[in-house]
């Protein structure tokens, strides 16, 4: 059985504190166990990403990743200007940067801004399209790691009905 198959419990289960140390450690433990399949740099990156997923702020998530927002025209982010339903917001990220390795998507106003992280191996286009939940009108960020440096793109989206709670 591949080490990748390690269940990662929800960090809020059992009343764990949001962004708390215990939660972070638990995340890290899972990431460490899961890291057997990755070469070392990605293993460490996965640990940092696990911390970033548990962060309640964009700044905290970026800090955990060791990233900064450095806007680049070579990172393109497509998000609708207006969405009626925040629970299904199409997002598309394209990188034109050589050596693109990872793509992260953030929704700034979400309780946990880091929405998803993609590891793009060589041979896969640095491009991904998915659908996310956006809590309220806010900025959506795309963060691309290329040759070890981070580059970003931002786009504001206006949401009529938020995508987090009921309804």
């Amino acid at each position, binding site marked *: 059985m591949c080490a*990748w*198959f*390690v*269940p*990662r*419990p*929800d960090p*809020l*289960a059992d009343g764990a504190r949001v962004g708390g140390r215990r939660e972070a450690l638990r995340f890290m433990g899972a990431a460490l166990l*899961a890291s057997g399949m990755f070469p070392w740099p990605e293993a460490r990156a*996965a640990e940092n*990403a*696990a911390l970033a*997923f548990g962060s309640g702020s964009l700044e905290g998530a970026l800090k955990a990743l060791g990233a900064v927002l450095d806007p680049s025209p070579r990172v393109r982010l497509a998000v609708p200007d207006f969405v009626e339903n925040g*629970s*299904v*917001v199409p997002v598309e990220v394209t990188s034109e940067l050589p050596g693109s390795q990872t793509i992260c998507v953030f*929704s700034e106003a*979400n*309780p*946990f801004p*880091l*929405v*998803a*992280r*993609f*590891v*793009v*191996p060589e*041979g*896969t*286009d640095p*491009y*991904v*399209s*998915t*659908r*996310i*939940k*956006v809590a309220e009108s806010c900025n959506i960020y795309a963060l691309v790691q290329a040759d070890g440096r981070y580059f970003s793109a931002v786009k504001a989206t206006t949401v009529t009905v938020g*995508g*987090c*709670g*009921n309804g």
Partner: protein
Amino acid sequence: MAEPMRIRARLKEGVTEVHVLMLHPMETGFRKDDAGRPISAHYITDVQISVQGRTVLSATLSRAVSQDPLLYFRFQGGRVDDTIRVDWIDTLGERRTDEAQIQG
């Protein structure tokens, strides 16, 4: 047991386009049921997609990925009839693996 994924992979001019639809509630843990009781979190955390044993995409998802996560991406070097395999695991330790063949 979760329902089978829908996987579509198509080779077009040397590039394989992949659509994966994973049927999953992706519960955030923030919602309440009709009686006002909180619905516990239940979402896919890790996805791994490989072709003939080679990883072509790994993804870490959060609760903020929409219900029934959809992924679309492209990779180079696939061949018609190659097997594409998608694995996921969620916060409750449920997992699912499905395969499909690359179409021409």
